[in-house]
């Protein structure tokens, strides 16, 4: 069952079309990677889902309820973490979560308890300073805490890791990993390795359109290629090797600067032995001989080409 359904969504800012006939379905209990280049329309899509922006046409439903622009009813089932969450800097983290709890309609006791639990989860329970003294990573973690406060059925995270250092990124990904059993997560990003780490579903947004959507494992299988990277000690070795008739029959991709070639194969099991044999015959010792693993980066390049 889809927790979020987006149908024929269109949005322009002035003459610039940002979304064009966007269709998207997010299955319940999934971690949905929403991938696209900067400016692809990820944030705009999320803001329309939240009723903060008005779509030119199309519809959005959350748990079967239609999202109406300017209204906040469907947001009671959603938690939202903006790319750069902004807080009332004069408040302390616990005070901020209490305010969020009150606004969400929780009673004071529950808001305090839930707030403390979440501060524990995101590692801010001992912080008694005002938010203005927080680092970016701490603000991002507080952002996750506020997004999870109302036990959302759908958590929208807009590029939560893009501005963080590696440690901050890992902390955020660990938190998302921890909450994925209780809530559906839509995770927009342009950092593909993050998607590989936490997501089980993937959608790629390009020029305001979804160009790919489905289970990550199925997509990776479908788009995987068989072949090897061969890195040579020098360009002479590489050129010599590439001129061989047995090599010419393969599809090759030459990366001259790196003295590396990508050899694509149709019959992987047989041809890999031939490749090794040929190297040995020519007395060329490669620096690297590595199987091409399916990577999201390759896939992304492929589909947005």
């Amino acid at each position, binding site marked *: 069952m889809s927790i979020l359904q987006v149908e024929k969504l269109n949005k322009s800012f002035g003459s610039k079309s940002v979304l064009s006939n966007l269709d998207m379905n997010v299955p319940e209990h999934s971690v949905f990677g929403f991938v696209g280049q900067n400016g692809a329309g990820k944030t705009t899509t999320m803001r329309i889902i939240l009723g903060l922006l008005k779509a030119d046409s199309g519809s959005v439903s959350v748990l079967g309820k239609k999202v109406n622009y300017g209204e906040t*009813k469907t947001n009671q089932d959603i938690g939202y973490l903006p790319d750069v969450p902004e807080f009332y800097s004069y408040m302390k983290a616990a005070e901020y979560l209490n305010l969020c709890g009150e606004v969400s309609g929780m009673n004071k006791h529950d808001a305090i308890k839930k707030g403390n639990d979440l501060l524990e989860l995101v590692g801010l329970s001992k912080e008694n300073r005002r938010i203005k003294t927080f680092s970016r990573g701490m603000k991002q973690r507080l952002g996750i805490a506020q997004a999870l406060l109302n036990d959302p059925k759908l958590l929208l995270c807009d590029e939560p890791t893009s501005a963080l250092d590696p440690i901050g990124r890992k902390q955020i990904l660990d938190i998302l990993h921890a909450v994925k059993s209780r809530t559906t997560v839509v995770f927009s990003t342009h950092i593909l390795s993050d998607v590989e780490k936490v997501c089980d579903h993937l959608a790629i947004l390009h020029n305001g359109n979804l160009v790919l959507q489905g289970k990550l494992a199925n997509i990776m299988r479908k788009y995987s290629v068989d072949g090897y990277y061969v890195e040579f000690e020098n360009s002479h070795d590489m050129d010599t090797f590439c001129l061989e008739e047995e090599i010419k029959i393969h599809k090759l991709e030459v990366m001259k600067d790196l003295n590396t070639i990508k050899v694509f194969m149709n019959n992987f099991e047989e041809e890999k032995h031939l490749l090794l044999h040929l190297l040995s015959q020519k007395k060329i010792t490669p620096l690297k001989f590595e199987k091409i693993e399916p990577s999201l980066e390759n896939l992304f390049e492929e589909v947005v080409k």
Partner: protein
Amino acid sequence: MIHYFAFLKKELLESIRTYKFIILLVVFAMFGIMSPLTAKLIPALFKTFIPYAESVLIPEPRALDSWAQFFKNVSQMGLIVFILMYSSVVSGELAKKTLVNMLTKGLSRKAVILSKFTNMVIIWFLSILSSSFITWGYTVYLFPNDKVSYLVFSIFCLWLFGVFLLSLLVFASTLTTQSYISLIILVGSIVISMLLNIIPSIQKYNPLTLSTKNLELLQDFVNPSYFKFIIPITLTFIIIFLISSILIFRKKEIR
């Protein structure tokens, strides 16, 4: 109502922790101290520094002079300081994007407008109250035998005029994205009111009169019945500005 009170609490906390409240309280307390003192000292200073002043008949200062200073200070400098402090009351939050988390938590947009307005009205009330109380105490001390008429009503009129301007400020700040444009709208509206007030027959219906007839009230030249149209008209304007702000804010895209 839950949203309204929760957000009002946040607004009050913001006014305290960002020092707006304390700055306004100090400024208005200063007016409270300065008004009677200025009234008392100006004739003496005049005599000291202007040699031929001895030959000029300078009237003895009275309580009325003290209140004249009060109404002048509060209705001009006081309101200017207050409005500058809150000039970006709505547009500032939109620019800083701090409302995004709140709105996505289900906070109603009506509650945002009403709680921001209420916060300003409360602080405006406390500011004018502190200033009037100090002026009153000091005036009674310096001019014990002087009496003035309709003092509380006269101060109420000035407070109501302030509330009217604050509702206009909320409206202007919702309409625009820059605080200076809100100020231009506000100043433009006051200038139009001043021009309209040149026509005597309009004065009885113009909210601006709430801040110009205060001394006449104290001297009993006009009585509260003079304001029987102005007060309902001002209240109607306040309601119109607030409803318009809510309607505009509901349709405002939050990027």
